[in-house]
């Protein structure tokens, strides 16, 4: 049993937000999905106040040992989440639910937190601060002081554990993590995708319908390890490490670097049951070391 922000988890492997739609997967894999549920907690895709259609396709580009996505956070909006998804998740999920949310203003974030406050199904909240600031074009979480100010504003709106999902597109991710902690975060998670670009073969501009995108997968694994290590050395709150995890050894590295939990994103695309495999490999690793 692992204790994380008051949640009791069976093992340290959870999914990365936006990389596993448990309701779609249940349609595809049926009950077996829940009998062999791969994650110790389930993190939802990012929910926004209003519905978003997401970016026009193409939304994917395969790069060297990685994937660029420009999905654009499609979701039905807060109301649809409360009315449709949450009851379905409450009925189906064998593990705690962490709801990932984003807002383009502190007010928006606050409104979402207020609405989730009454929902017992929501065990914790992950706040995605990789949303671009309209004024600067930078991620709102890229600036330590701005991040701390945002948290001072929204933190009082929720009594649930609050995980801040940091942006990696910053000069000093450890300072951002410290800002999040100072603002009242209960944990931080990282890394989100690295800003990346793919051009269409033949010189006709950006390939992705949304312009640029975010790089994930093994390509970013060692960047993730560096950022997690820096952050874990700086903050005292727990850290959820992610980025390119594909094996128990990769997960072990993040734990060794100071993470409490590890999240699996892109690897689940290659292997839907990757979460269980990685948890098992981690466990085998422990056993091997113990012997």
């Amino acid at each position, binding site marked *: 049993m692992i204790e994380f922000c008051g949640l009791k988890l069976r093992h340290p492997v959870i999914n990365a937000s936006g990389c596993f739609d448990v309701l779609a997967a249940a349609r595809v894999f049926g009950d077996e999905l829940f009998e062999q549920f791969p994650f110790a907690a389930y993190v939802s895709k990012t929910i926004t106040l209003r519905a978003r259609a997401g970016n026009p396709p193409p939304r994917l580009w395969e790069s060297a040992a990685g994937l660029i996505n420009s999905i654009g956070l499609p979701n039905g909006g807060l109301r649809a989440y409360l009315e449709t998804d949450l009851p379905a998740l409450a009925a189906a999920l064998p593990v705690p639910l962490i709801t990932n949310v984003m807002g383009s203003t502190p007010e928006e974030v606050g409104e979402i937190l207020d609405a989730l406050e009454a929902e017992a199904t929501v065990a914790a909240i992950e706040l995605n601060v990789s949303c671009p600031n309209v004024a600067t074009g930078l991620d709102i979480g890229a600036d330590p002081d701005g991040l701390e100010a945002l948290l001072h504003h929204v933190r009082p709106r929720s009594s649930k554990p609050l995980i801040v999902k940091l942006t990696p597109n910053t000069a000093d991710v450890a300072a951002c993590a410290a800002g999040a902690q100072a603002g009242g975060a209960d944990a931080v998670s990282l890394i989100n995708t690295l800003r990346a670009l793919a051009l269409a073969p033949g010189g006709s501009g950006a390939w992705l319908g949304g312009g640029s995108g975010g790089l994930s*997968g093994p390509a970013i694994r060692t960047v993730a390890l560096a950022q997690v290590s820096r952050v874990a050395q700086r903050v005292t709150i727990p850290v959820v490490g992610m980025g390119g995890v594909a094996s128990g050894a990769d997960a072990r590295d993040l734990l060794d670097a100071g993470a409490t939990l590890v999240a699996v994103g892109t690897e689940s695309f290659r292997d839907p049951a990757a979460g269980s495999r990685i948890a098992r490999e981690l466990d085998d690793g422990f056993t091997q070391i113990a012997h």
Partner: protein
Amino acid sequence: MSAPFGRRHAPLLIRRTYGPYVVLGAGDESARAQPGQFYMLASAERWGGGDGERPYLARAVSVMSVGDEGLMEFLLEEVGPGTKRLCELEVGEGLLIVGPLGHGFDEPDAGVEPLLVGGGIGIAPLVAVQEAWGGQALLGFRDAEHAKAAELFTDPLVSTDDGSRGHHGFVTELLEAELAKQSRPIYACGPPAMLHAVRAVARTHEVDCELAVEAPMACGFGACYGCVVATVDGYRRVCVDGPVFDGAVLA
């Protein structure tokens, strides 16, 4: 029927070619695919190290044929590093498979023999349709070499772009001719331009058409939201809401 959860290892049992196309066969006893469904395929060894240090993700490939005891056959055309690696596999090497996935073709009403309109590699799922439910195959290819894959069908009508085999011209011309004889529903799969033309023909002739569409896919089971296609109801994921859509629904 739902797919077994997770990625499985399946040794390659069959490999044969039709002109430039490669048929791969692997056993998947635990699953039975519906016509139009697909698998995510990767090689078990050395998936990577090709052009641009790819492939990395698995590749979506339609079920071409469901044999006895869960033998699945796939038809492949080499277009990039992923299909290259799959096409190079030898019998005895391993595949990693996830599936069957997606929403396939609807079974035709009893007694109805649909028209199966395929272009190039898009013929693959139509082999499964014909095996399951019959139907008249209308197949368009670049040239006679590619048209060797017509052998996969019973009594197909063939067109080629260069006239080297069958009708010289578009497969939609064969389709027009058949519909002129008898109004029947259409099951189609092929390049976007062909599907577009098929939809126009279906509209004119007021027949139903089901189209199997493609989109770049990362996961194949609804996890990444990457494979969307525009429909009258907004973006839909090809992997879970398709790959087969009613032609009237696509935007």
